[in-house]
């Protein structure tokens, strides 16, 4: 496959993420400048941290004058769902060579979703995963730069465009369902997702639901080991 074609393929895959990351990154850039952060620092955060909710949180903590310890703990808590992402990608990233550190660094919710939903014949294609990861971060950084530059005056009414990320998750869930043809993960997700929605405050919702789901999958593995293997 020629190189331009390979990037075009990755570009097409990341298009929905672009619709989400550009406005979201811009919102982040606007917020960062508004609380008094220099433009270069705001852009640098998108380059070296690269975490949507994490960067919003960091800006809020910076504005509130929080300490470094508080920042470290809050960031670890907020992003600890990534622990579970890594668990399910150990095999897939094996032998990725020089691309591996970046693949791990750039593991956002959206990149994880795209990479794990690639068709079976492309699942082991780490070069494709790398291009998808890099493009996703490019959209995020570009959005941040636009936000920093534009301040509060955006030319076009983009209200509601962030729904693109919700739409992406819906499409990827349907694709996963088509591939797996098993109801179990979706039942677990409904149970833990709705449970977390009822029981947990907003900021702990994702971690609570994903953590509980991982525990249930662990139990499912233990129970399924003896009778007719767990598939």
């Amino acid at each position, binding site marked *: 496959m020629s190189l331009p074609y390979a990037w075009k393929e990755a570009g*097409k895959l990341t*298009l929905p993420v672009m*619709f989400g990351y550009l406005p979201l990154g811009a919102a982040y850039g606007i917020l960062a400048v508004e609380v008094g*952060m*220099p433009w270069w*620092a705001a852009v640098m*955060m998108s380059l*070296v*941290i*690269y975490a949507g909710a*994490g*960067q919003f949180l*960091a800006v809020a903590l*910076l504005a509130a004058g929080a300490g*470094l310890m508080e920042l*470290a703990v809050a*960031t*670890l808590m907020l*992003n*600890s769902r*990534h622990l*579970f*992402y*890594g*668990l*399910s990608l*150990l*095999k897939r990233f094996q032998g990725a060579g020089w691309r591996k550190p970046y693949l*791990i660094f750039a593991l956002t919710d959206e990149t*994880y*979703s795209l990479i*794990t*939903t690639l068709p079976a014949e492309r699942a082991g294609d780490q070069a494709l995963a790398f291009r998808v990861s890099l493009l996703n971060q490019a959209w995020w950084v570009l959005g941040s730069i636009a936000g920093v530059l534009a301040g509060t005056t955006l030319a076009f*009414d*983009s*209200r*509601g465009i962030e*729904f*693109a990320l*919700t739409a992406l*998750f*819906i*499409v990827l*869930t*349907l694709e*996963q369902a088509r591939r*797996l043809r098993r109801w179990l*993960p*979706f039942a*677990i*997700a*409904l149970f833990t*997702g709705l449970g977390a929605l009822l029981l947990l405050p907003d900021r702990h*919702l994702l971690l609570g*639901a994903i953590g509980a789901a*991982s525990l249930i*999958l662990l139990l499912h*593995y233990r129970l399924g*080991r003896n009778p007719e293997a*767990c598939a």
Partner: protein
Amino acid sequence: MSTHSLLLFIGVCALATFATRIIPFVALAKHADHPLILHLGRYLPPTVMMILVIYALRDFRPLLDGRLNAGATGWPMIAAALIVALLHLWRRNALLSIIGGTGAYMAMVQLGWMG
């Protein structure tokens, strides 16, 4: 805030974020072929995806404090989510489903339909 302390702030946040991403790869590097890890690799992605959908739609609360709540973004979000799902089941074209649903949502929110 001095440039130095700002850089320190960014550095701590970057390290803490990267730590959450790399820990499983370092801690379990030797166990990638363990059946439990393979089990999680198979079932965790669809579970997480569905949880992300629920999370993304969390602002929809038809009942709030025991009363019917016709919130501003609630119904357009559900309607747009249905459009995405139906478009996708019908044509199975990811881009079409996403653009169709997002366009419908933007129109509903910006024009104040179903508000």
